[in-house]
């Protein structure tokens, strides 16, 4: 037989003025299970809590109902008090007679009193069905996995590692550095990208808490927050990194030339190569698709020139496993291919190039030594037209969203063009100039005023050739007239899109992605770095287009989140989660379908005790379940119940009125 104690609060005058509290107490005392009922001025005060504690001991209460303010306010307070009296804290129920009665029925004391009585009756009925629950403790493996070695991944890895937490950093290409390594100077300060990035890259390589695994991909992730197991495929590099000294003899002698993807194909690299001179790790890899030795079994020059004997043509892909507790995804972005813009002659006119190609050209370490040149004839362009929103904000040919960074990098390109070619003239076709950021508007002004770049509002309609010039036709909407510009070169500010492997990666990690392929955050405003899956976080352009400051900020935020998870030996979790009764479960797996967190898996259990034959039933992963109760509502055979909100608790409330 349940023994319930009811403690009604006056809340000063807040409740007592509008609800006849003593009458309510008298009414409540009539309930069979209520062994003790009392009122007090401030239940949440220390003396108030003491009343509860004393009564629990004195009346051997099996559950406690506090009728006071909203449970969202003081549920934790009273749970602590109950727990201090030696009762399980989840045997407490709150009847919300302030927000739901005294404050909203101030003109009808009688009705408010009746309602308060009913609310308490409901809470008593529910509390009778309450069970003892215990906080869930999930042990954690204190190691983080960072996927992607661009600036986002580098920053997150360094921040986590600086907190003395081991980090596994996986990068798909032979070197970390990512897109930022390809940039020349960065807006809005025009400091050199390499100068600020390479120190961080070196830090990663030498950090005692970071295990850098380059030229690799994550191919599997099992488990849940604090207890993940990642499978990582190390692609065969055909170079034994422990022997290689990075002397570069092999790359010099290799006879095979391939378009250099780091330089956007403007120049060539060898079949054995390091992507760029400051690469970390600075060890070459063999491109198996182009190596003569691997393709045809002929050549072997690199092996001959390598004094250390580091070349190993027999190397195979290798899969390694790491146990980790949290994941930071930082896979970065790709550039949209402007091919659909046929009216701009993309693909036909060599002098219509993309902004990243231009970026590589103006880079001091780039293929042209820092000078922009026309790919068609090698001449230095004097008149350059920059066109923004290529692919961005274009549902017809590209994508709907704004790529966020193009306004700024186009202003930067206009300035850089002026720096490199002093007598040049830059035109920018824009639809809007979106320069929201610290020092951004000033930067655009600098492009417009200091370098005399002409901004024309409008989208270009057509580019055609006249001799060796490109004729760019567009409307200047401010003038309201069509203008034609005789240009030497056209630079298209192409949109940024998520890396094409994002959907596959998202499925593998069990997180969601949007229609473009960007990985989805848990809440667009309040949880922008978390994913819906606990323990997996997002940094940088894998979540949405971002500039470098935002990316670094988000990466550091990820690091803070990861350190938060690892701050104790175990994760503490609210015990109000779902539980399966395998005897009732028929294994239809509809619950698996509706669970938003993939917290439900299946397991095989014997049909009867000791039987060899098995059947499949649902299994809830305590570490992952967030306690929404979707599964409990769709379970037809009542096998799943949500602790704290079981069917019997809710029905008790319904029928007690």
């Amino acid at each position: 037989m349940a023994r319930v104690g009811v403690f009604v609060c006056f809340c000063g005058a807040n409740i007592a003025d509008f609800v006849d509290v003593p009458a309510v107490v008298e009414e409540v005392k009539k309930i069979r299970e209520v062994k003790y009922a009392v009122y007090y001025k401030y239940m949440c005060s220390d003396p108030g809590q003491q009343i509860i504690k004393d009564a629990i001991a004195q009346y051997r209460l099996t559950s406690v109902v506090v009728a006071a303010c909203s449970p969202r306010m003081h549920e934790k307070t009273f749970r602590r008090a109950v727990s201090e009296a030696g009762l399980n804290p989840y045997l407490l129920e709150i009847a919300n007679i302030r927000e739901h009665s005294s404050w909203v029925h101030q003109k009808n004391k009688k009705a408010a009193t009746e309602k308060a009585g009913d609310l308490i009756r409901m809470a008593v009925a529910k509390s009778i069905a309450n069970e003892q629950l215990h906080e869930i403790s999930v042990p954690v493996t204190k190691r983080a996995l960072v996927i992607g070695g661009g600036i986002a991944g580098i920053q997150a890895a360094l921040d986590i590692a600086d907190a003395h937490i081991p980090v596994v950093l996986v990068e798909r290409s032979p070197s970390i550095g990512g897109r930022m390594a390809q940039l020349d100077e960065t807006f809005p300060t025009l400091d050199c990208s390499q100068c600020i990035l390479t120190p961080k890259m070196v830090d990663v390589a030498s950090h005692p808490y970071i295990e850098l695994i380059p030229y690799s991909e994550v191919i599997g992730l099992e488990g849940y927050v604090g207890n993940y197991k990642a499978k990582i495929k190390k692609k065969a590099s055909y170079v034994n990194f422990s022997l290689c000294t990075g002397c570069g003899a092999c790359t010099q002698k290799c006879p095979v030339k391939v378009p250099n993807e780091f330089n956007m194909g403007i120049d060539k690299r060898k079949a054995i190569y390091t992507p760029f001179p400051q690469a970390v790790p600075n060890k070459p890899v063999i491109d198996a698709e182009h190596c003569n030795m691997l393709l045809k079994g002929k050549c072997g020059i690199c092996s001959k020139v390598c004094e250390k004997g580091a070349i190993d043509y027999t190397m195979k892909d290798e899969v390694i496993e790491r146990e980790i507790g949290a994941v930071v995804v930082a896979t970065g972005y790709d550039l949209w291919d402007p091919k659909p813009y046929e009216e701009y002659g993309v693909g036909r006119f060599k002098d219509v190039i993309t902004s990243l190609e231009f970026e590589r050209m103006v880079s001091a370490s780039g293929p042209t030594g820092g000078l922009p040149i026309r790919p068609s004839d090698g001449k230095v362009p004097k008149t350059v037209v920059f066109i923004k929103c290529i692919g961005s904000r274009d549902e017809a040919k590209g994508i709907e969203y704004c790529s966020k960074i193009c306004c700024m990098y186009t202003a930067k390109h206009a300035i850089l063009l002026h720096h490199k070619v002093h007598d040049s003239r830059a035109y920018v076709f824009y639809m809007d100039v979106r320069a929201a950021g610290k020092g951004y508007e000033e930067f655009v002004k600098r492009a417009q005023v200091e370098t005399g770049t002409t901004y024309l509002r409008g989208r270009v309609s057509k580019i055609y050739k006249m001799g060796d010039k490109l004729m760019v036709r567009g409307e200047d909407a401010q003038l309201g007239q069509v203008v034609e510009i005789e240009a030497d070169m056209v630079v298209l500010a192409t949109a940024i899109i998520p890396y094409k492997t994002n959907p596959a990666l998202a499925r593998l990690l069990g997180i969601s992605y949007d229609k473009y392929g960007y990985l989805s955050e848990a809440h667009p405003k309040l949880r922008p770095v978390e994913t819906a899956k606990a323990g997996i976080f997002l940094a940088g352009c894998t979540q949405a287009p971002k500039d470098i400051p935002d990316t670094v900020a988000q990466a550091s935020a990820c690091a803070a989140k990861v350190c938060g998870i690892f701050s104790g030996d175990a994760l503490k979790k609210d015990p109000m989660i779902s539980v399966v009764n395998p005897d009732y479960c028929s294994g239809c797996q509809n619950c698996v379908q509706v669970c938003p967190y993939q917290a439900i898996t299946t397991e095989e259990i014997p049909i009867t005790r000791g039987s060899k034959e098995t059947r499949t039933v649902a299994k809830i992963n305590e570490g992952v379940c967030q306690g929404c109760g979707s599964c409990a509502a769709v379970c037809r055979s009542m096998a799943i119940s949500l602790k704290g909100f079981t069917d019997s608790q809710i029905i008790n409330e319904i029928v007690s009125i």
Partner: protein
Amino acid sequence: MTKLTYFPGCSAHGTSEEFDHTLKLVMKTLNVELEEIPDWNCCGATSAHVMTENLALSLPLRNLVLAEKLENNTMGIACASCYSRMKSTKKYMDEHPDKAKELTSSVIDEGEYTGKVEIKSMLQFCYEEVGVEKIKSLVKKSLSGLKVACYYGCLLTRPKGVTQFDSPEYPMSMDRIMEALGATAVDFDYKTECCGASFSISRTEVVHLLTGKILEMAKEAGADLIVVACPLCQSNLDMRQPDIEKHLGKKIGIPVMYFTQLMALAFGYPEKELKLSKHIVPVEEALSNIGKVVETPQQPTKTKKAVPSAESEAK
């Protein structure tokens, strides 16, 4: 012998007789029998849709209904304007069967519309159904040495949703056919610019401006002649050329031929069958380039480059 329903359009029996005639020659070589829609009427281009709604749909719809009575799956249309009107009407009717029912029952008195006949322009038919390979195999007299600028105009490839054929910005089907005949198709950026056809009579000054630019660009691209697939384009580019020259104050003198004329020529028909006399701008000089050796066009002469790596074909 395959059969093809044929809609010639009003100009086939007027201004563009040479198109109609050479088309029939070409089809004979390609072993295609043209079956003209009995008692066809004008499709309404380019005026009906400007002024009215129901009539603009009814005029082409009558032809579509009549075409269904011939038992061919495909209808070929010579004129690009007719093609555009008929095909967009078909698309509208297929999407709005109620409207089709309303019009066939109350306005047109020729029977039901089912939408079973597919519509193709003659260029599309040659490119998609016949194929470049077959055309190549039938060439008796190569047109090598002839540099042509292929002009598509607006309506053969636009709007994309209606025509479902080739690129709306830089189509290449006619260029491919011309290459199959042995001719050289030059890079021509104005191949889909509008010639102003529907203002041919009412606003000639517009036509002069638009057509003048097209002619100039073709000349600039180094073409001997312009190849077209539409009678309205042809008459604007050819018949009005002397006026345009006066307007611009300079000589252009670039002949304009139908692609079927060149196909017929390459298939071995004698020149007199091409009805060359109908051209206002004489064609003979241009055709005399056939057989001449030309230097490979469009490859810009390689100058010394600042950096050797820039040679690579980046794109």
